[in-house]
């Protein structure tokens, strides 16, 4: 659908497109392998995945290439430079979050500014029971914590449930509110969850307060015997990032599948009807309350699962990871990509995460090197630059600019959903 927007005709026709895309992927992965520390090379690799998506390659070949790049090339490059794998995992986590928020904001049109609360609930669910923390409020005779690592998979399902439950819990009282009132209340809810996490170390120590919880169990390396049989001896240090990468990739795959099925089902259409006109939707027989609760529950459940993965990946969590900033970050991903559009949410999440983790951090490091070297630009000695100034600390500014520019210049987003575009054009 979006291929037409691309100016180059070369990548629209299947055969030349296939050749070009394969060449670009090969070239970029070679350059990453050759210059493992070059951020530009890795961004080229990321761009090649984007190119693959937009190109007119025949669908089956596209699928094969996608599996190859994400399932084989990315892990290999990740073993060359571990940071890239970390970036890929983070992108995956945020893609799932953006897709979840996309259901609530993009499809159902309910602006949720406290989305990160569900993520926090998921993260704390595993953190409390997957670490010795639970011993502090459950008497030691009945159960011994941390739970064994195998429970992680049970908790992945529990994460869906707790996320959905929290979503419904928030949804019930606030469903009567519309528009910006709803936004403010969800914002308040997000803050309440964070304040609770910060302060529930007394009278009962549930969350260990601002100190956070550590160490949290990681999932079991159940495939290790298989690897040993195959003659591969790998240490947990190298295995865990790859493990998390594939885990996140798998979950993102499931989330995308669920999203696509939902979007075109009667539920998705009901959500969009609510977004367009609540009264008309109700008149047409859309059960408002049930559909809105369902939207909240679905969106929240994705965040819940990713919260579980996040806490297991980080081994340590504290309330600082779940601030309002995170909620706005996910929101700007959805808006950048295009509200209500699945490829949009994926692209938005990738762009923002890469910008944050890679570009800004890279810029900070580079600036620091220049500063230490005392380089002079246009007669200004960079050594005089105040030490407080660090591009990596200005992500709010980036989010802010993204939000304002997008709603003014291109409210439909980078990859708009077709129905949404029509709505914006009418008004």
């Amino acid at each position: 659908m979006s291929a037409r927007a691309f100016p180059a005709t070369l990548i629209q026709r299947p055969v030349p497109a296939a050749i070009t895309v394969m060449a670009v992927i090969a070239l970029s992965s070679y350059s990453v392998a050759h210059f493992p520390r070059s951020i530009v090379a890795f961004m080229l690799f990321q761009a090649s995945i984007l190119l693959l998506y937009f190109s007119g390659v025949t669908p089956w070949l596209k699928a094969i290439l996608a599996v190859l790049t994400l399932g084989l090339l990315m892990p290999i490059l990740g073993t060359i430079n571990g940071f890239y794998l970390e970036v890929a995992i983070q992108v995956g986590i945020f893609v799932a979050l953006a897709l979840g928020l996309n259901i609530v904001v993009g499809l159902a049109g309910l602006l949720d500014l406290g989305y990160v609360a569900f993520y926090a609930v998921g993260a704390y669910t595993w953190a409390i029971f997957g670490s010795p923390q639970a011993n502090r409020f459950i008497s030691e005779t009945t159960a011994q914590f941390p739970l064994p690592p195998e429970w992680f998979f049970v908790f992945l399902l529990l994460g869906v449930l707790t996320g959905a439950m929290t979503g419904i819990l928030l949804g019930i009282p606030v469903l009567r509110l519309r528009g910006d009132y709803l936004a403010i209340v969800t914002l308040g809810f997000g803050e309440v969850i964070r304040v609770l996490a910060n302060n529930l170390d007394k009278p009962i120590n549930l969350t260990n307060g601002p100190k956070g919880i550590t160490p949290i169990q990681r999932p079991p390396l159940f495939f290790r015997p298989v690897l040993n049989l195959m003659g591969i001896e790998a240490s947990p240090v190298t295995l865990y990032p790859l493990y998390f990468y594939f885990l996140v990739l798998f979950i993102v795959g499931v989330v995308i599948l669920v999203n696509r099925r939902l979007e075109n089902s009667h539920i998705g259409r009901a959500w969009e009807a609510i977004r367009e006109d609540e009264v008309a939707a109700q008149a047409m027989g859309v059960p408002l309350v049930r559909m809105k609760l369902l939207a909240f529950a679905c969106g929240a459940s994705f965040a819940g699962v990713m919260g579980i993965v996040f806490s297991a990946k980080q081994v340590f969590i504290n309330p600082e990871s779940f601030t309002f900033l995170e909620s706005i970050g996910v929101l700007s991903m959805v808006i950048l990509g295009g509200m209500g559009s699945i490829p949009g949410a994926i692209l938005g999440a990738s762009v923002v995460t890469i910008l944050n983790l890679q570009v800004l951090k890279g810029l900070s490091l580079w600036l620091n090197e220049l500063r230490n070297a005392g380089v002079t630009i246009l007669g200004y000695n960079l050594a005089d630059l105040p030490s407080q100034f660090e591009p990596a600390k200005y992500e709010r500014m980036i989010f802010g600019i993204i939000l304002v520019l997008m709603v003014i210049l291109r409210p439909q987003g980078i990859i708009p959903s077709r129905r949404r575009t029509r709505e914006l054009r009418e008004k």
Partner: protein
Amino acid sequence: MDLPLLLGILPEVILDGLILGFMYALIALGYTMVYGVLEFINFAHSEIFVVGAFVGVEILLALKAREWLDVLSPFLVLLLLLAAGMAVSGLLAVTVERVAYRPLRGKPRLIPFISAIGVSFFLQDAIRLFESLWRNAFNLVYPAMDQLNRRFTLTETIDVSVKSLVVILAALVMLWTLHLLVNRTKLGKAIRAVAEDQATASLMGINVNRMISLTFLIGGAMGGAAGVLFGIQYSLINPYTGFVPGIKAFTAAVLGGIGNIPGAMVGGLVLGLLETFAASYFSLLTHGAFGSEYKDIFAFSVLILILIFRPKGLLGEVVRERT
């Protein structure tokens, strides 16, 4: 329960609550006026407020560096701070409206709101960037003014600092002026007309865009004044200070009935008092189990309860929903 202790701190609690309440009332005016005219939550208003606080601290630091702070009368300095803070914040609010809200007028409701969130985030880091480059620090402290910090005793248990009284007085004067402006002048009538019905107001020869700008100017100026007073009262400011007071002030506006100017004052005072009571008595009443850190949760719960059970607020008219 220790009743004498609870009663003993009561006057002080009420005084603190009043100060906080007037602060909320001043900020809430910005939200409520803009909402009255455009039916839009100006999420960036909390940063307009912080800008006022930073203008104040910059002027004070500049005066201090030249050692004029001890020479000039503190009340003159205070007037200067208020005037500068109001001017800068007011103009900033007008600019923000021009750049980020006006192009979006008439779009679906959520669109300008998202833009406002963007502006809010942008301004937070813009202040931080500016202060980082200018002072190499962005957590700033208001220099103490000795004459304002002097305390005097009312009774044997209650003593009041001069600055508390000054803050309350300044807030009262400003609220009264605003009340006169909106209800007794032609300009105020025009603003009210625009709030009532933009199209008809425009047919009556009112320049709607100019009135909207004026609304932002007044709301922003009140926010800026609140920022200066906040700095004088609580000393410590940083670019992110505005978030929590902003949300609280919005709560106050909703509590009083959003779009309603006396409502914002009543709502601000009620919320300020409730919150201070909660902060002082929570830990006493629960024997230390829940401390004052729950006061934010308390305020948010108040907001949620009002929105559910009395969405029009204490003094409000019915709010029309425009979808």
